[in-house]
């Protein structure tokens, strides 16, 4: 099984030189720690920053410089600030090459639910609906099952949808899956995990073709 850090590390292998990337809150944020050597990516934070740097030192802290998770951050050389309308112009017009998000549920058509649990306090979708409606490439980082052990990879969503047919790839603690027209295509397995383990943890349509390789780091 992969740790949260390993999920982030595996997703980082998808980064390509020159990519503009938007990372969601939680596991997706960790992807920034594993950018492969020799590859330059520019992080977009939807509150109005392109070229986001790491967290500041005590001396560098600036209340006017935060990320979309409201955490204090820094800038990289060549960074730029802009207003929220410009930020979502970048997002909706498809300029952001890769978006990494967490999810509560994904179905085998690539629909995603990650903003609302009926009966619980609804906090809002933030920028998630704009991101999933327009991003060219969306990777979901999440645990394969929820706390009760139920599959989060479903044939149909039980929670309110955030966006339709948008998820291209899912990296969970068990495996790497591509979402294609045939369903959840199993591509790689975590060390010590079998196809049967994934099958048992996947409620939606799982497609297994040939020998499935182990995730390499």
């Amino acid at each position, binding site marked *: 099984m992969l740790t949260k850090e390993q999920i982030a590390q595996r997703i980082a292998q998808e980064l390509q030189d020159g990519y503009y990337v938007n990372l969601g809150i939680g596991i997706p944020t960790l992807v920034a720690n594993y950018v492969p050597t020799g590859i330059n990516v520019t992080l977009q934070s939807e509150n109005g920053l392109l070229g986001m740097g790491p967290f500041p030192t005590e001396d560098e802290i600036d209340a006017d410089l935060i990320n979309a998770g409201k955490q204090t951050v820094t800038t990289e050389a060549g960074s730029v600030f802009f207003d929220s309308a410009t930020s979502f112009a970048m997002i909706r017009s498809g300029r952001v090459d890769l978006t990494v998000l967490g999810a509560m549920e994904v179905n085998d058509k690539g629909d995603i639910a990650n903003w609302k649990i009926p009966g619980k306090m609804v906090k809002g*979708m933030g920028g998630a609906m704009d991101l999933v409606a327009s991003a060219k490439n969306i990777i979901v980082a999440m645990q394969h099952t929820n706390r009760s052990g139920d599959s989060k990879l479903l044939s149909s969503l039980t929670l309110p949808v955030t966006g339709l047919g948008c998820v291209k790839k899912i990296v969970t603690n068990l495996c790497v899956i591509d979402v294609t027209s045939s369903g959840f295509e199993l591509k790689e397995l975590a060390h010590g995990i079998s196809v049967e383990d994934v099958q048992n943890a996947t409620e939606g349509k799982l497609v297994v073709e040939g020998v499935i390789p182990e995730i390499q780091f």
Partner: protein
Amino acid sequence: MNKVVKNADEAIYGIQDGMTIMLGGFGLCGIPENSISSIVKEGIKDLTCISNNAGVDDFGIGLMLQAKLVKKMISSYVGENAEFERQLLSGELEVELLPQGTLAERCRAAGSGIPAFYTPAGYGTEIAEGKEIREFEGKQFIMEKAFESDFAIVKAWKGDTDGNLIFKSTARNFNPMMAMAGKITIAEVEELVEPGELDPNFIHTPSIFVNRIFQGVDYEKRIEQRTISNKQ
């Protein structure tokens, strides 16, 4: 015409019970702290507030919620606020949640003479319910309308007495679009200078959008998530 007012108490003149106001800021970053305090002091109530977030319990719009001045919040994300949750669950407070980009664009449209626009955000979700859907080039879009707002209150870093504004870092966020969108726009700034002192090349909000301006005092600039790296 003199746009300069003494302070927030004077700036909020004319905001009345039941009005709709926009408040700039993302989380607690770039919020009009002085004007919020004056609204609370004045006890202006039944307000509909358009703002990306609703502050925290004891700061930002949270102070207006505590004083029960807000009838409705229009936001994209309203976590981090227990009083908000209590009022919402008890039915005292109404909330309309919108995708963040839609919220920004509805402000921009309001300030641009554009009554409505089509966006893909929220298609197929409950956000689209009751809204016109239209297909362009094989993809589905939702029609969203420009906001209508009696007042917009924004916070800038520097401003001149004509009303030109410059924002700092990510404290810019929703402020420029909201500055364009109010029937009356109030700007509070950390530093108020004479016309000519700001380089016209670096002004974010042109003076024409701003009706009242003042230099704020005692900015707390509270940090919501103080994250530090250990690098040397």
